[in-house]
C-alpha cells in the first residue's frame, strides 16, 4: 500500500523538491525566499521540537479527516476483505463462514472470467493510448504560440465532461441507424457498422469514449508537469544541440518522472474502474461483451445479492492493483537507485 513511497515525510528538502523547484511548482503561492534562508530554517530543527510541545492541536487537526478515512475507506476495505470469506445478506443479519468458496465461485464463473478478460482488454486499449496521446497533445499545445489559450481550453474540455451525458451523446453518435459515424461511413461508401450492438465492436466503442476522456485528463497532468521543467533546462539542451525525440526521452521525461508516475496511476485506476459509460451505453451487453469487473461486481452484489462473491472479486482487483503499484515502483526506481 505504500508502494508510491513516503520518503518526503521525514526530510523537508528532498532532491526532487529543492527550493528552486518549489518556486516553479507553485508560482503564485511562493514569494521568492533566498535558498540560504530556507536551508538555515531547515537546520534549526530545534524549533520543530518546540512546536512539538503542543501536540494536541495538530492531532485535533487530523481527527476530522481521520474519521472520514476510517469510516469510509479503511473500515469498508477491511470489511470487504472479511466479507469475501462469508455469505453476506444484503438486508443485514448473520454472516456465514464459507472459506474460499466465494473466490472459487468467482474464478470459475464464465461470466466473471469474461468480465475480467474484458477489463484487461479495455485497460490495454485505453491506458497506453490515452497516456501517449495525452503527452503528445501536451507537447503540441505547449509549442503553440498564438492561439494557445484556445487550443488548451478545447483539449481540456473532455476531462470536465459528465460521463453520463457524454455516454448519451456517444451512443447517439455511434447509433446503428441515423448515427453520425455511420452516416459518415455511408458517404465514404462503407456499410453501416452496428457499433454497440455487435459483440466484436462494442467494447472498442466504449473504449473510444474512455480514450477521448482520459487522454484529455492525462494531457492536463502532463501540461502542468511540463510547466515545472525549469527554463534553464531548455536553454542548456538548446546550447548542447539536443532536441526533438532525444530531448524528450533523455531530458524532459526523466525530469517529469513524478508527473509520469501520477498520470500512469490515474490512467490505470480510471480504466479498471470504468462504469458510467458501460452502464449508460450498453449495460454490459450485448452478450456480456462489455461487462467489466466493476459492472460485474455491481451485478453480483446488487442484482444477484451475492455480496460475498462481489467482495471476493473486488478484493482480487485490489491485489492486482497493489501488485502493479509495487512492480511499477521497482521498474521506475531501477535506473536511479
Amino acid at each position, binding site marked *: 500500500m505504500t508502494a*508510491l513511497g513516503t520518503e518526503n515525510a521525514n526530510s523537508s528538502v528532498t532532491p526532487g523538491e529543492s527550493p528552486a523547484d518549489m518556486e516553479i511548482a507553485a508560482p503564485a503561492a511562493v514569494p521568492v525566499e533566498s535558498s540560504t534562508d530556507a536551508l*538555515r530554517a531547515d537546520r534549526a530543527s530545534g524549533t520543530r521540537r518546540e512546536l512539538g510541545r503542543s501536540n494536541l492541536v495538530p492531532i485535533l487537526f487530523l481527527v476530522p479527516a481521520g474519521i472520514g478515512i476510517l*469510516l469510509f475507506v479503511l473500515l469498508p476495505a477491511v470489511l*470487504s476483505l472479511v466479507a469475501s470469506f462469508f455469505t453476506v445478506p444484503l438486508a443485514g443479519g448473520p454472516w456465514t463462514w464459507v472459506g474460499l468458496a466465494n473466490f472459487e465461485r468467482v474464478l470459475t464463473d464464465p461470466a466473471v472470467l469474461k468480465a475480467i478478460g474484458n477489463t484487461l482488454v479495455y485497460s490495454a486499449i485505453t491506458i497506453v493510448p490515452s497516456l501517449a496521446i495525452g503527452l503528445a497533445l501536451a507537447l503540441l499545445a505547449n509549442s503553440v504560440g498564438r492561439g494557445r489559450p484556445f487550443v488548451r481550453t478545447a483539449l481540456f474540455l473532455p476531462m470536465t465532461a459528465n*460521463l453520463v451525458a457524454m455516454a448519451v451523446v456517444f451512443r447517439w453518435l455511434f447509433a446503428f441507424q441515423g448515427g453520425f459515424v455511420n452516416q459518415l461511413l455511408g458517404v465514404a461508401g462503407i456499410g453501416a457498422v452496428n457499433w454497440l450492438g455487435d459483440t466484436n465492436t462494442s467494447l472498442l466503442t466504449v473504449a473510444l469514449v474512455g480514450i477521448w476522456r482520459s487522454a484529455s485528463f492525462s494531457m492536463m497532468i502532463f501540461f502542468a508537469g511540463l510547466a515545472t521543467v525549469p527554463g534553464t533546462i531548455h536553454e542548456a539542451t538548446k546550447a548542447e544541440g539536443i532536441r526533438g525525440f532525444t530531448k524528450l526521452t533523455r531530458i524532459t521525461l526523466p525530469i517529469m518522472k513524478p508527473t509520469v508516475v501520477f498520470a500512469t496511476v490515474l490512467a490505470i485506476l480510471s480504466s479498471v474502474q470504468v462504469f458510467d459509460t458501460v452502464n449508460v451505453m450498453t449495460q454490459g451487453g450485448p452478450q456480456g461483451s462489455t461487462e467489466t469487473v466493476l459492472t460485474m461486481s455491481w451485478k453480483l452484489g446488487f442484482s444477484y445479492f451475492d455480496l460475498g462473491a462481489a467482495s471476493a472479486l473486488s478484493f482480487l482487483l485490489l491485489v492486482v492493483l497493489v501488485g502493479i503499484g509495487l512492480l511499477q515502483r521497482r521498474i521506475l526506481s531501477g535506473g536511479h537507485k
Partner: protein
Amino acid sequence: MIRALRAVKWLLIAVAVVVALFPFYWMLRTALAPADDVFFDGISLVPTSIDFANFARAWDKAQLGDAIVTGVIMTGSILVLQLITCIPAAYVLAKVRIRGVGIALAIVIGCLLVPVQVTLIPTFIGINVAGLGDSLPGLILPSMTSAFGIFLLRQQMMSIPDSLMEAARTDGLGHVRTLTNVVIPMAGPGIAAFSVFSVFTHWNDYMWPLLIARSPDLATPPLALAIFQQGDIGFDYSALAAGAAIVTAPVVILFLVAQRRFVQGMSGAEIPG
C-alpha cells in the same frame, strides 16, 4: 522541411481540437434542432432551424429542475466538508513534525490506490444500517473527506518556505492562526484547484447516487439523465441531447472560469517517486 513539420503540427492540433470538441458540438446541434430533424440522410452539420422545445421537454420529463437543486446541495455540502477536513490535515502532514505523520501520510497515499468497488458494498450496507439510505446525508457523508484532496493540498503546502513558518512561530502564532493567517492564503491555488476538482467529481458522480437515491426526488443530474434515457424516452435523441447539455453546462462553465488556477494548482500533485 521546417515548414512541412510546422504544417504537420498544426494539422495534428486541428484534428485533436475537432475530436475533442465534436461530441459537445453534436450534443448542442442535436439539442437545438427540431425533433424531426434527427433522422436524416447524409450529413448535415448545421440544423435546418433552431428550436428550444427539446430543452423544455427534457427539463420537464427528466425533472432536471429538482435534480439540479439536489445536485447543488449535495456538491456544495461535500465541498464544504472536504475543505474542513482536508485543509487542517494537509497542514499537519506538510508542516508539523510530530510522531506518526509519516504513517498518516502513507495511509493517505494508500487510500488513493483503493478502487471504489472495494469500499462500495460495505459503505452501502453501513449507510443503510445507519438509516441513511435514500437520503441526502446518505449521498453526502461517504464523501466527507478526500484522500486525494489531503494529498494535493499537502503537496502545495510543502512548497511554503519553512522560514515563513518560523516567522509565524516567532510572532507567537499558534497552529490555528498559522493555518488561517499564513498557510491557507499561500495554498490558495491548491485549494482553488481542489475545489474545482471536487465539484467536478461529485456533480458528475453517477454510481453512488444510483445506489443510494432510490426515490426520484433525490436523483442527481446524471442520475436523472440516465433514468430519462432508460425510460420510454430512449429514442428521443433531441430531448436526451438537450438534457445532456443542461447537465454538462454548469461544470463546463465552472471550468472555463477557473481554468488557469485549476491547472496551476494541479501542478503540485505529483506523487513523489
